[in-house]
């Protein structure tokens, strides 16, 4: 189920991907739901920066809350983790 709130969360996440790509001179692949994060054009350090920025903006870090979370595979998985944590 997608509520307005969820949509804006996705938007904020996508904005952060774009900003970090810009800052680090990376070319971002089109951000579709089934895009594998490792194919997004960002490396793991950039993904770590995104997690840190989102923690500042949203006040949550789903990766430190989860006991044993594997890093999500696709963009949709990533967004869902934040939706679940919100």
């Amino acid at each position, binding site marked *: 189920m997608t509520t307005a709130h969820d949509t804006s969360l996705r938007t904020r996440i996508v904005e952060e991907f774009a900003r970090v790509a810009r800052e680090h001179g990376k070319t971002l692949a089109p951000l579709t739901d089934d895009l594998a994060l490792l194919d997004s054009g960002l490396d793991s*350090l950039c993904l*770590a*920066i995104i*997690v*840190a*920025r989102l*923690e*500042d903006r949203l006040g949550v*870090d789903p990766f*430190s809350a989860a006991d044993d979370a594997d890093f999500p595979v696709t963009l949709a998985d990533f967004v869902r983790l934040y939706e679940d944590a919100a």
Partner: protein
Amino acid sequence: MIVTGGSRGLGLVLVQRLADAGYRAVAIARKETNPLLSAIDDAAGAIEFVPFDLGDIAGIPALVQRLRKSFGPIHGLVNNAAVQFHGALALMPSAQIEQLVRLNTLSPIVLTKYVVRAMMADGGGRIVNVASIIGTTGYSGLAAYGATKASMIGFTRSLAREVGPMGVTVNAVAPGFMATDMTDALGDDQRRQIERRSALRRLPTIEDVAETVLFLLGDAATSITGTVVTVDAGNTA
């Protein structure tokens, strides 16, 4: 600037030197001490104390969040807090071994994890890990402690490679024996023996070591990363 174990010994002197040098220093320890309280009074807002038990690994993410909320971006982190248990490994309680590894290895690694990603997001930062000459040389009775101090050196080198591209430097300082609470247990004979075996015929002071950490945190050290600076008055020369 965050200094773990900033309430006594090396950490306290470092916090004072940071404040003198114009930085805002945050000391983390379980409890404040009178010398820290008077340093806070003297520093007119440049020194803060945040009580936290660094053995509480699960609480570290929230600690870092609180530090950033209260004090803003973190420019430097000094992993200085540590415990030392002295004694034959063959008789050392496993709980003590576990506590050594938890406080001296696990805790600084997890704390660094949360601090370094914030530093990367902010465009850079400085990390200094306080190791020891016991991380690379032997001392009977300090096998488990020595393992934890060696771990800080390995951690320093690989992390420096990992986060260098994001503008974060990571270095270690390896002090020789200094006179602090930690080395109170050393007898006079042992101390004299260490002095005799040192090129400079003395122990390094806490101030010597604090100056080295300060240097690594400052602008003069921008091109230094992934290295270990030994400050031991030539004990291992």
